[in-house]
């Protein structure tokens, strides 16, 4: 994983991408116990002035395939890990990317989404595995409830959060 992150950092230094943040299961692992996953979700922004307003991941694929990385469906294999590069789909994703926190894997710097943004994005996606992850965050006690409340309010997710609570947090 360290080698994968080093390649992504180099791609950033070379100006192919702007800011990036790890989300999904690998991002959640920053806060929780590790749980099985086969890929890394990397949310990326693009530097301005690349000559086109059309958002495309082509420069990433071109950069990486020129460096012996192999494209595989929606993934690209970077130093043994399947990486999925994702532009933030909406304002919540943009904020999650902007507010990601810096950490290090050994000496390699990287950025991980905050726990509250990971929960809000999981709630927005709403698949069974996302609900499981939200429950893990709650049980681990790592969420700042005020911060989460503000995010859910800002992005219209409060009603969905209440439904989630009714479904999964109400005592039998």
């Amino acid at each position, binding site marked *: *994983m*360290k080698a994968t992150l080093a390649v992504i950092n180099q791609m950033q230094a070379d100006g192919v991408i702007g800011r990036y943040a790890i989300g999904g299961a*690998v991002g959640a*692992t*920053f*806060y*929780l*116990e*590790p*749980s*099985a*996953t*086969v890929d890394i979700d990397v949310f990326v922004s693009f530097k301005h002035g690349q000559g086109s307003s059309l958002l495309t991941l082509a420069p990433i694929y071109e950069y990486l395939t020129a460096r012996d990385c192999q494209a595989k469906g929606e993934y690209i294999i970077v130093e043994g*890990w399947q990486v999925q590069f994702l532009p933030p789909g909406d304002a919540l994703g943009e904020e999650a990317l902007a507010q990601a926190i810096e*950490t*290090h*894997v*050994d000496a390699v710097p990287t950025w*991980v989404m905050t726990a509250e943004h990971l929960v809000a994005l999981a709630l927005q996606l709403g698949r069974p595995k996302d609900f499981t992850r939200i429950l893990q965050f709650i*049980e*681990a006690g*790592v969420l700042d409830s005020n911060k989460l409340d503000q995010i859910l309010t800002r992005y219209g997710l409060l009603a969905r959060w209440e439904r989630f609570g009714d479904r999964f947090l109400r005592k039998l």
Partner: protein
Amino acid sequence: MSDWMRRVLDGKRETRKRLAELPFSEKLILLEKLRDRSLLIASTSLRRRQLHRG
């Protein structure tokens, strides 16, 4: 819930807490091992047969 079951659940919770408190670098090494096991399980003929049955 029985005392025995409560102790089992407490033990699991403690293990998860201990794992969550590891440094990120160490957790990523565990994640790699989990990924390798997942891919190995997914590649077995037994698993493939199960998937075909739906």
